[in-house]
């Protein structure tokens, strides 16, 4: 009997099933497959939904044009100013948020006294948990009048010669700058949390080796930890960028929603792809209008995809240059 049992066990199928490895791997692959299927299905359905708009406007929909319009009555739509608005707000937000977040993360992972660590960690995570509509409310009633408007006026009077600070900010403070700053606050917790975990995951030996070679703490952080964790930090930045590109409610509430302003100036009201969709989709009564809004969704989809590919490429480059770095 013992012989027959061991014989059974030694069969290839039985052996594979014995410890559940194969069923497990199937389940895991299946779960990952769901993500793939979802992305493909969403992509397909918005591609089809935008067919009418793509036929009607063709490439001119996304092309730069001196006199763009977004006119549901005349059914003339140009996405160029909206694309500009999305890119400008997301990129400025990421440029502002990355150093702040990385510094917070370094502090939390390396320098923070234990007594402070828990409260700061908690605050950072709290910041991530605030619903975006609350950020929007706070933005409209407190942040815009007290911070954004004075800052905007200052930038306008000192750096007004730069195209990105041209024009005068509306008295309410609603502008791309307001959206950038709100987005910065919103993505700081994302980047901070991931960067902190990346830094913490770096083996102790790395730190000790560099200190033993006579490096100061600052040199250890700057020359060992950051390069080692660079690809992970880049991943964190990408996560933040994704949130900045797609953030809807808070941006809609503070950006001023001007769908034709195409200078890209931070001080003027603008619009982002996500905010225009959120604003107009519910009451879009004509087919072309609906389809044009769905095409904005396609653009956002492709934009996110492209940025992700670029980011992967960056991570890959970094990983090759710094052999020990792991994402």
């Amino acid at each position, binding site marked *: 009997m013992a012989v027959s049992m061991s014989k059974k066990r030694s069969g290839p199928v039985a052996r594979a099933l014995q410890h559940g490895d194969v069923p497990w*791997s*199937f*389940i895991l*692959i*299946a*779960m990952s*497959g*769901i993500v793939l*299927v979802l992305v493909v299905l969403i992509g397909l359905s918005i591609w089809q939904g935008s067919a009418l708009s793509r036929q009607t406007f063709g490439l001119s929909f996304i092309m730069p044009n001196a006199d763009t*319009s*977004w*006119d*549901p*009555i*005349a059914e003339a739509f140009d996405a160029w100013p909206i694309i500009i608005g999305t890119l400008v707000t997301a990129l400025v937000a990421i440029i502002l948020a990355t150093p702040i977040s990385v510094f917070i993360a370094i502090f939390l992972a390396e320098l923070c006294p234990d007594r402070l660590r828990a409260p700061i960690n908690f605050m950072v995570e709290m910041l991530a948990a605030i619903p975006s509509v609350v950020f929007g409310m706070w933005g*409209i*009633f407190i942040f*815009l*009048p007290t911070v954004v408007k004075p800052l905007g006026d200052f930038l306008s009077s000192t750096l007004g010669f730069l195209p990105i600070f041209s*024009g005068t900010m*509306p*008295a*309410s*403070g*609603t502008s791309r700058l307001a959206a950038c700053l709100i987005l910065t606050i919103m993505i700081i917790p994302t980047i901070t949390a991931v960067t902190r975990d990346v830094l913490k995951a770096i083996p102790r030996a790395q730190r000790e080796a560099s200190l033993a070679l006579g490096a100061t703490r600052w040199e250890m952080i700057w020359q060992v930890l950051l390069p080692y964790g660079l690809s992970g930090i880049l991943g964190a930045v990408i996560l933040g960028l994704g949130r900045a590109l797609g953030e809807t409610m808070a941006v*809609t*509430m503070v950006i*001023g*929603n*001007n*769908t*034709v*302003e195409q200078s890209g100036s931070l001080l*003027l*009201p603008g619009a982002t792809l996500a*905010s225009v969709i*959120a*604003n*107009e*989709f*519910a*009451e*879009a*009564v004509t087919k072309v*209008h*609906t389809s044009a809004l769905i095409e904005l969704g396609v653009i956002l989809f492709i934009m996110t995809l492209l940025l992700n590919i670029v980011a992967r490429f960056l991570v890959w480059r970094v990983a090759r240059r710094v052999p020990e770095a792991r994402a």
Partner: protein
Amino acid sequence: MPRSTRISLISLLIVVAVIAAACAPAAAPATPQVVEKQVPVEVTKIVAGTPEVVVVTATPDASKPALPDGSVQLNGAGATFPDPVYTEWRFAYPYVDPSVVINYQAIGSGGGKKAIADGTVDFAGSDSLLKDEEYAATPGLQMFPTLAGAIVPVFNLAPEVTTTLVLDGPTLVGIYSGKINKWNDPAIKALNPDANLPDKGITAVHRSDGSGTTEAFTKYLAAVSEDWKTSPGAGSAIEWPVDKAGNGVGGKGNAGVAAAVQNTPYSIGYVELSYATANKIAFAQMVNAAGKTVKANAESLASAMADFGDKFSDKLTIDRISNGSGEKSWPISTYTYLITKMDQKSDPQLGCAKTEKFLNFVHWALTDAGAAKRAADLGYATLPEAVRAKVFDTLAKVTCDGQPVGSDISMK
């Protein structure tokens, strides 16, 4: 390689199975949450306040007092403009007929139209009129007005002007086209000779989201100005000339417009009357088509409706009731509509009772004094007698599976 091929094949199968499994419960009708028969009728009135306890069927049980047979859930979706009133109505109506539970999702007029055309709701709310092609695509659609509302210009001119401001149509057109861009413009001065109007630029705030409020407002602007009518025109979302001029700001929702106006010195915006009064925002008086200065209230709204009387098209719609000729008429007024189907399909469980209950609800909403008071308290007005009669005449012809329905409307 064959091993990985096998793994991917099997995993694909599992994906399909999982998706099928995930979809199956959705495809199968969700188990109706049947409220036990023992619940007395008095309790169901309270139940109406908790929407998750939806009475779908009443199981027969002779021993205890029963829920009325044929309890019904009516589903609606659409316009946000009348939503405050519809919400009040649907919570009040179970006290009239405890067997009816009404749902209304304020997803926007466009969404409402799509839902009624797809047959996913029993009725839809809409501020914008159905187009000919929409009538053609879904035969039997019928719009009828339910309420009228007023839109008011709100302003922030503190500290110079805090109480009253008088505006007229051409001035509003000028402001929203960007042609009048200073508060001390002669056009505004002429209307407000005593006001201390500042030499400041005007920030014009408009809705950034598509809205029945915007549609009514722009219809008024188009009614007073031929130029506005040609471009940009009137609709639930338009391209604002004042945005191109650089003085425009879009706020999301009534709240967004109100906040922008309150936070922006020397700004102007437009919101529903109820919103302005509830939030104590200063709003302007208007010079109407008869040349009289009027305030927005129930009386001036009623006068605006009376100006257009029962001049409804054969589809029971009217293009606008703004810029009416009456001396007391508030010029920026609008009707909001419900859409239903003239021939309804009988419900598998309830037969034609559903259609009957829907019509009874409409009858109650349009005739009951309490329903009218709830609307008036929110700054809306119910229909004048002549219009109501037209609505009932049409709705009396609603059929269910081709058969006439015995509702209050047809017995009227």
